[in-house]
């Protein structure tokens, strides 16, 4: 075995807080060989980011301290090196990139000066030489017009571009190890695919090691040689990616894999969520930290910490009941193939929904699923959009040419009673705006919205206000959309006081009922929002939305901000409620799997236009629009380029100046002159399947 590039042994990190010292990371060990990619996977509070910062000794600046264990880079133990020496290692031997490229650049300096500054910190040389070198680096990471980009500031570049620039900056010191902390989390799925591809390419061509921190098992599956699963500051399980994902041994890993709405999971079926949520730093459970959420937990788990026991082949899991759990998982696996599509790229044969076998599976599962479509097709449309447009004026005034941001640019849509309609698209596609227009939360620029056949308009105040009783929304930010000064009881009762004549006591009863309905305790109504976790807050938001028995609910990125394990709980709750209350809903999300899991029908948006709508399975099975197909191909953990997959280059153009013709033509590998000049009509391509493409697939 070669000498590892980085060896982390029994690393324990303390964080100094006003309540005393908390231990963020306890006795974690792993190592990275040269040229290897290791993924640290975990949810909030798992300690993965702080562990990665500790390797750079950046924790010192954030009230953290290394309380035990060792970190060895090559031959150098660095856990107690003075900062002056560490500074020289940073950026030169170890470089780091971050989750939010926009925030990771100093907004007031040019990209170029920040790259040059990095070089100057480690090497002597002329500024002009460094500048040229910077231009080359930008070119190397695939940034067009690098000379121009060097002179721009972060605000002038898109997220994907900035992340490339970030990588270029990291490369400027020629590092042996690149730490990538959630490098693609803030990016759209097509861009994420590009960045991951770039990282892989750089890794092999430069023989770098990569430590990738992610919460996304799909990303881990696509990138990792080995995976380290962290839970609440401890290593739960680690081993080669294939093994960990293929035959997980720790109940947490198993639970995580089950929580994911995979492309193979049965639509409409409850996800197997892990109960509860990850513990906070201050309230770590005794014994095995996972025990409160674990189905296998015994008294032993409650009392003593399980060691990270080596099984074989570099695999280890920290569980007293690992064998038992693995056995159950294997059984489930056989039944449901929970992680089939999450196959690590190099070792496993390509799989996924585009794989013939997987496709068959999908088809068969559809047959088993409760089929609503037929019954729906005949029912009345509840909400209709006709040629909806929303243009936001930009700048202008005082003679400057006015420009419009065409957020939604002519969308027609019909949602049937009882239907769940999923809306997907990248940032800037206009999906959230469309959602708000459907509810008439803002006035449209053109077109109209019909509710039960009558025009609904924000301008008709009385009718509009009455209609709020039927049309409700669950917001993407469950904390920002509640008044922090109100108790949750008051928050949930707000729609009641607006729309009903209930007296105080009746309201209290109703609120208690609602709280229990969404899985919270009725006695919590006097508590305030900040006392709740993200998942609980979203439950509060749901309770509020259903308080007045609406007919329709818009769920706008309602689960995007939640931990994976918690996301599953909320998805389940939403599905249950929909069935119980007979709701019609629109579910907006950027996570394709979740949308597919919950929706009857899906619409795909691109640059303010609806490019395709189809029943969920149909869309995933036979995407007709190249963009839809590209989106599907970009889902991480998908097999690499299969003949049918499309990878798109470049980024979504600005909605202020959309391309003529088909708006996707600039990124479409199949675009022709026709596409460039003539806008395709939104036409039927199959049963209840429409697409706007001259050459539907």
């Amino acid at each position: 075995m070669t000498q590892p590039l980085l060896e982390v042994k029994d690393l324990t990190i303390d964080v100094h807080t006003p309540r005393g010292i908390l231990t963020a990371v306890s006795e974690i060990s792993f190592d990275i060989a040269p040229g290897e990619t290791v993924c640290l996977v975990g949810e909030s509070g798992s300690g993965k980011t702080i562990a990665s910062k500790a390797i750079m000794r950046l924790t010192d600046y954030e009230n953290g301290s290394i309380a035990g264990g060792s970190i060895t880079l090559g031959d150098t133990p660095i856990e107690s090196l003075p900062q002056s020496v560490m500074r020289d290692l940073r950026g030169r031997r170890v470089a780091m990139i971050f989750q939010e490229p926009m925030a990771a650049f100093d907004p007031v300096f040019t990209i170029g000066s920040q790259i040059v500054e990095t070089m100057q910190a480690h090497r002597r040389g002329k500024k002009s030489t460094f500048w040229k070198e910077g231009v080359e680096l930008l070119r190397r990471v695939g940034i067009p017009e690098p000379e121009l980009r060097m002179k721009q500031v972060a605000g002038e570049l898109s997220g994907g571009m900035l992340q490339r620039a970030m990588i270029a900056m990291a490369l400027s010191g020629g590092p042996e190890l690149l730490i990538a902390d959630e490098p693609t989390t803030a990016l759209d799925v097509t861009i994420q695919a590009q960045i991951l591809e770039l990282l892989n390419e750089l890794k092999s061509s430069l023989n770098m090691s990569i430590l990738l921190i992610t919460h996304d098992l799909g990303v881990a599956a696509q990138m990792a040689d080995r995976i380290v699963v962290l839970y609440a500051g401890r290593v739960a399980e680690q081993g080669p990616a294939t093994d960990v994902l293929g035959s997980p041994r720790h109940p947490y890993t198993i639970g995580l894999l089950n929580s994911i709405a995979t492309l193979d999971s049965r639509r409409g079926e409850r996800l197997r969520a892990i109960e509860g949520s990850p513990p906070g730093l201050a309230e770590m459970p005794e014994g095995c930290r996972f025990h409160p959420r674990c189905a296998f937990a015994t008294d032993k788990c409650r009392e003593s910490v399980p060691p990270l026991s080596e099984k074989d082949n570099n695999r280890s899991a920290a569980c007293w009941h690992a064998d038992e759990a693995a056995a159950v998982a294997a059984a489930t696996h056989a039944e449901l193939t929970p992680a089939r599509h999450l196959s690590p790229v190099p070792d496993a044969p390509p799989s996924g929904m585009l794989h013939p076998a997987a496709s068959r599976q999908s088809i068969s599962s559809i047959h088993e699923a409760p089929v609503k479509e037929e019954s729906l097709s005949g029912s009345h449309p509840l909400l209709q959009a006709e040629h909806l447009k929303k243009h936001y004026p930009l700048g202008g005034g005082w003679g400057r040419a006015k420009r419009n941001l065409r957020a939604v640019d002519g969308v027609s849509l019909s949602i049937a009673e009882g239907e769940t309609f999923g809306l997907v698209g990248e940032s800037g596609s206009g999906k959230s705006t469309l959602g708000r227009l459907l509810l008439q939360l803002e006035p449209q620029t053109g077109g109209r919205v019909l509710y039960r056949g009558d025009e609904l308009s924000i301008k008709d105040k009385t009718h509009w206000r009455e209609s709020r009783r039927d049309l409700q929304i669950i917001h993407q930010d469950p904390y920002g959309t509640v008044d922090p000064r109100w108790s949750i009881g008051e928050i949930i009762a707000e729609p009641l006081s607006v729309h009903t004549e209930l007296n105080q006591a009746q309201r209290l009863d109703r609120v208690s009922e609602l709280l229990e309905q969404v899985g919270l305790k009725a006695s919590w109504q006097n508590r305030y929002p900040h006392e709740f976790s993200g998942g609980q807050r979203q439950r509060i938001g749901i309770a509020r939305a259903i308080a007045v028995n609406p007919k329709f609910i818009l769920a706008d990125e309602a689960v995007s901000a939640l931990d994976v394990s918690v996301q599953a709980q909320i998805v389940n709750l939403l599905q249950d409620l929909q069935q119980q209350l007979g709701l019609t809903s629109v579910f907006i999300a950027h996570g394709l799997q979740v949308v597919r899991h919950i929706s009857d029908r899906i619409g795909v948006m691109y640059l303010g236009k609806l490019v395709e709508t189809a029943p969920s399975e149909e869309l995933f099975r036979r995407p007709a629009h190249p963009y839809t197909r590209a989106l599907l191909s970009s889902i991480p953990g998908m097999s690499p380029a299969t003949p049918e997959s499309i990878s798109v280059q470049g980024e979504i153009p600005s909605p202020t100046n959309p391309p003529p013709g088909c708006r996707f033509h600039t990124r479409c590998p199949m675009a022709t002159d026709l596409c460039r000049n003539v806008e395709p009509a939104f036409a039927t391509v199959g049963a209840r399947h429409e697409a706007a493409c001259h050459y539907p697939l």
Partner: protein
Amino acid sequence: MLQAIGSRLFSSLLVIVGSLALVFCIFYLLPGDPVLSMVDPTTVSPEVIENLREQLGLNRPFHERLLAYFGDMLTGDFGRSLVGSEPVLPKILHQVPSTLLLTAASALVAIVVGVTLGVLSAVRKGGIIDLSARIVGLFGISMPTFWSGILLILIFSVQLKWLPAMGSDGFETLILPALALGFVGAGSIVRMVRGSMLDVLNEPFVTTLRAKGLRERLIQIKHVLRNALIPAVTLIGMQIGDMLAGTVIIETVFSRQGIGRILADAIMAKDLPVVQGIVFFTAIVYVGINLLVDLSYAAIDPRIRRKGART
């Protein structure tokens, strides 16, 4: 762009005219008139006083006086002081350099002291240095300026004989008043710079800078401070305005020349033309300060420079 400047100028003009009209109305409503305080009322006879009123145009009706005032202003005539009968414009212009110099020097003190202490306090957060820097800063805004001014004179002029106690000629006479006035502004600037430094220190990009291996000092000064100054610039602009107003007291304490003192005297003497002239001047300075603030924004923040507008 030109039109943006145009609209800016127009609204500034409105504000200036509004200020002048406001002051005019206040003075019109003030009881008494300047004449009685210009003469010895025990010996000067009523006819003489009546003659003075007539001569000074104080007996004319409100609208006539207002129109006449703005009419004259349009031709650049700011009138004559009622008390000393000298033309207002040269009288003020003569005093302006001294006041501007004091304001600028005080602003310099406030910015240098405020930013230094703010930075120190932020980077040494929680320690003794932080605490002392903040308390030193707070002292500035906790002491009446006339008192700190007199204390400075007693210490540095009378006891130590290091610096002159009065006057407005030369650099030396500027030091004590600028300290007395500057420390007031410094307090708020310390607070602001510290707060926004701490905010910026928590920005993710600071972690990036550290991860690149930059020196901590370089990070703090080149990157963090520059970002932290963006919100501080507005405050500094407002502080400069306050310092301009503060010259009224400081100029008296240190017997400096300046419009602050003229203003106080003119208000007491109800010398409207002089007060108006000074209000006109200060209004222009305020407009200028705002412009300066915007220019500083552009200098610090390229985002603004490139968009040509404040976000």
